[in-house]
């Protein structure tokens, strides 16, 4: 059984060494407590699990982008603070859903079409290009770090690959939008 990580600094270290493993451990450790914590929000069980997953993803993204506040010390406190906010939102959404009876605005439709095009384009891009772009733009890795992570020859190879992949993605987006 793996050691329970309760301290944010400890989690940061575990995350840097193996992000997936660290997130899995957090998920398993705090799942039950979160379900109990969510009981007062009167959400269906599957909705609570969904909120918990979104909470863990938010933690994952914050760790990735180094956005976890330094003053935070307990993983549980931090996780549940995010979770509480998400539970309140889910609760309001649930209420609206029953009130509006699933009506979708035109604005939402447009935004979701654009979102869909981008997602489709990213899928078409291919794993290696997507990984370079994710590491560079989203996770903000340095060129040197990408070179080591992806075992590329030198920094120029990374820069060239990044430019080529971005160009390729833009072309795919353009084609996808035209087809759509």
């Amino acid at each position: 059984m793996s050691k329970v990580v309760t301290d944010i600094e400890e989690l940061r270290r575990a995350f840097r060494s193996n992000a997936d493993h660290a997130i899995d451990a957090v998920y398993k450790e705090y799942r039950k407590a979160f379900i109990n914590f969510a009981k007062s929000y009167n959400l269906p069980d599957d909705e609570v699990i969904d909120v918990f997953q979104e909470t863990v993803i938010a933690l994952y993204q914050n760790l990735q982008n180094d956005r976890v506040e330094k003053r935070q010390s307990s993983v549980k406190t931090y996780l549940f603070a995010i979770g509480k906010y998400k539970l309140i939102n889910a609760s309001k959404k649930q209420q609206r859903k029953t009130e509006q009876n699933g009506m979708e605005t035109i604005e939402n439709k447009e935004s979701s079409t654009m979102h869909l095009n981008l997602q489709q384009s990213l899928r078409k891009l291919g794993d290696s290009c997507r990984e370079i772009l994710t590491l560079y733009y989203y996770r903000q890795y340095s060129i040197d770090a990408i070179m080591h992570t992806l075992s590329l020859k030198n920094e120029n190879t990374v820069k060239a690959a990044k430019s080529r992949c971005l160009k390729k993605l833009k072309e795919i987006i353009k084609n996808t939008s035209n087809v759509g």
Partner: protein
Amino acid sequence: MSDRDREIVDLYFRNALTEQADVEYFNARMEDVDFKQMVEEETAIIEALGNHDAAQMKKRLQKLESNISKKPNIRIIVAVLLLAALLAFLVQFLLSEHTTPLQSEEVYAQFYTTYPNIIDPLTKGASDAPSIFQLFEQRDFQLVIDAWSEKENRTDAESFYLAMAYLEIGKYVLAEPILGSIQEGQFMDDAAWYGVLVCIRLERGDCLQRLEAIAEAEGSVYGGKALDIMNFISN
């Protein structure tokens, strides 16, 4: 789009604009339509990259959740097993009329006594009977069984002593129907008494009612003993 523009946009997305680059970025954003469009386009791409990354993580967590949900909860299994054991114990307890296997043996041993040969040689009836009753008295129980177990039209006396012979060698199951068949005559009360002892020994379900019937039967010499058993069990 110049290489410098590309560099500035990259610095912007990485929050690494210098003071000089910040001014360049601001001017280009205000004056150059293509530059502005590129920034907006790439902002959306970065957001999509983040969403894609989050979607991958979501898939991982859903898979993890499904594994957790499938995995039987060890605490529930232990609770179910304990409940089943408790239920089995209760059923056993009720079926055995408040006696446990250990108690049933104990009660039987406490109250069972070898029945004496009370048959008067002059009233034994059948010509071979005297010698077989004699065998019972001599504790040759297997010979008694050999002589009477296959015999048709046994007298109640023969049946009763055959059952007693079975009890002496511990064959309670064979004794049980024979004792149950004696519903009248001289050995009726004896058969009822030994029948209830067999009932307890074999942990049958209706022993308590039968004991109560014996205790309440007028004139039965076993009434006191039946009460003693009931006290013994309740203690």
